[in-house]
């Protein structure tokens, strides 16, 4: 097995094996190199981390609890199921961990304008939130389709003072929002910082976002050790770009006894439209990095589909591609229908309305737990709450709100 020591990847050019890198227009290269330099300075600066930690505690509400999901455990009748409760964070998902880290970096670099892409709107809200908190103007690019299916978040972003720019190219989803954000970045390269919402994009974003989100896995590791006196047997997290998953997984990569499963969106099923880049795609180059992508034989990117806007993306963070090829992590997929069933079950059993993204993770828990022993332990990342999804779910259940 290749060396998977926690902090040895990426290499200095941002590669995880053949994945990652910096595939951007020359206009952006100097800026990307600046971001990388600022990030490596910040990383070594105790004051930067002190500010990050304080905001995590007092503004975000960390650490998030490690909750023993007893009803789920009983019902499934197998492994003990724990939820890492990142849905309790300020703004309702893990996305805020990353936006705090990046806005502090943007401020260090003297940038005066923030842009972001968003799918489910959670990253958009988390970005708009830190922009309000630190007084920077914020423009969020969001696909027109997603604006329609995530209305509550669109309104939240506007309340927070952000400009939400609808993107109508392509299918009007996350991929298109990211294209448009990159076009804006190239145009406003001097004053603008691009807060990317997941572990994708040109180096140093995949590693940087992972490092911010690793707060999830570090806490989880300490909490489960305290609670159970041992490491979990299985980690499960949903994957759009892969940031909540990388955040949970990364601090466990060296623990060979811990199995890792990432859950991609199977949409209508792998033979129809879906968003499972690792299971249904192949390596290619998009949005600044080499990674698995849904694409035609001619290298044209194909539209993804998921009921969950946050997972509706034809790519995946490059480190996941690497973990997939090296088999350190296993990647599975869950369909729209399975996720909806899981959404219902989690809500009714636990009294927790999950976002549709972690509902995919819960559906995988439903498959795995019964097959495992009673003293086995699963930790699932409950990375977001479902308030934003009530319109989508109501529509699927045939209810008009």
């Amino acid at each position: 097995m290749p060396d998977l020591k926690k902090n040895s990847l990426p290499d200095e050019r941002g590669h995880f094996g053949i994945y990652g890198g910096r595939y951007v227009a020359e206009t952006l290269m100097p800026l990307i190199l600046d971001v990388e330099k600022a990030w490596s300075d910040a990383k070594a600066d105790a004051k930067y981390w002190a500010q990050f930690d304080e905001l995590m505690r007092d503004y975000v509400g960390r650490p998030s609890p490690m909750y023993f999901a007893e009803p789920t455990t009983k019902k499934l009748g197998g492994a003990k199921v724990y939820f890492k409760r990142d849905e309790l964070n300020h703004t309702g998902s893990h996305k805020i961990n990353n936006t705090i880290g990046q806005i502090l970096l943007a401020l260090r670099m003297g940038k005066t304008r923030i842009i972001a892409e968003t799918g489910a709107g959670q990253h958009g809200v988390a970005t708009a939130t830190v922009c309000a908190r630190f007084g920077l103007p914020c423009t969020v690019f969001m696909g027109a389709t997603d604006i329609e299916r995530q209305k509550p978040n669109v309104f939240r972003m506007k309340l927070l003072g952000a400009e939400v720019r609808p993107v109508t190219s392509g299918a009007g989803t996350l991929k298109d929002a990211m294209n448009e954000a990159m076009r804006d970045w190239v145009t406003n390269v001097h004053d603008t910082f691009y807060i990317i919402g997941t572990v994708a994009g040109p180096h140093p974003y995949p590693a940087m976002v992972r490092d911010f989100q690793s707060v999830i896995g570090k806490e989880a590791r300490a909490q489960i050790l305290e609670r159970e006196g041992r490491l979990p047997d299985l980690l499960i997290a949903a994957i759009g770009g892969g940031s909540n998953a990388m955040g949970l997984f990364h601090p466990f990569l060296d623990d060979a006894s811990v199995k890792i499963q990432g859950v991609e969106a199977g949409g209508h099923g792998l033979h129809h439209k879906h968003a499972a880049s690792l299971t249904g795609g192949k390596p290619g180059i998009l949005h600044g990095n080499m990674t698995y992508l849904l694409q035609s034989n001619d290298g044209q990117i194909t539209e993804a589909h998921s009921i969950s806007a946050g997972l509706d993306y034809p790519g995946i963070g490059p480190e996941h591609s690497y973990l997939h090829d090296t088999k350190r992590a296993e990647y599975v997929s869950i369909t729209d229908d399975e996720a909806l069933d899981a959404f219902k079950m989690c809500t009714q059993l636990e009294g927790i309305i999950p976002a549709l993204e972690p509902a995919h993770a819960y559906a995988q828990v439903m498959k795995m737990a019964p097959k495992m022993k009673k003293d086995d332990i699963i930790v699932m990342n409950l990375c977001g709450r479902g308030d934003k999804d009530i319109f989508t779910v109501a529509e699927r259940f045939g209810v008009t709100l």
Partner: protein
Amino acid sequence: MTNRIDATFAKLDRPALITFITAGDPDIKKSQSILDLLPASGADIIELGMPFTDPMADGPVIQAAALRALDSGASMKTTLQMVRDFRKNNTDTPIVLMGYANPVYQYGMDVFVRDASAAGVDGLIIVDLPPEEDDELYTASKAANVHLIKLVTPTTSDERLKTVLPKASGFLYYVSITGITGAASADVSAVKNHVESIRKATDLPLAIGFGIKGPDDVRQFAAFADAVVVGSAIVSEAQKPDGDVATFVKSLRSAL
């Protein structure tokens, strides 16, 4: 054989006109007929866009052109076929293929360069393949006598030039604005200053592109460039119901 790009710059005693169209827009047949009429209308070098679903450096005009082309069945293979057909009647106008890394990567970088060279391609511009990531394509291009054209931009510092220039050949493509294709025109004097400072570091011909829309722009930038590139304006002209690409390109050329 001398590369046609080198031959063209060696022969011209005025700045060159580089015209861009997207291969297969609005369909392969119409696109071929536009391609074929460009040299006689005054194009010295032709940039042929390889359509891609997610053209991150392009504005709405060229985005739409790429989607029209893809919808009409364009592919990497049909683009190379267009070049082969063009070469049946034209053996000396250089063709530079411009596009994004993924379709080239899927084709296989080595094989692609070989096929492109055999089809009569003289240069490649891959927008999202900076020198840090282009080793494979660079080596393949060198071996096939195809120039891998490098971009320099308003954000390119003297320090950065040291990374870009060692791999540059054919000509340097100066992107006149920080922005996407078809955007507002650049500030001529800022571009002039930067171009003059870049010339101190290289003897390569310097082409200026992005935001050049008509004969007036062409005249202004050509005053200190070795070539000017017009793209979105030609693509738009071809889209007009009464559009006349030949006449439009002639008007650009007469400004030189």
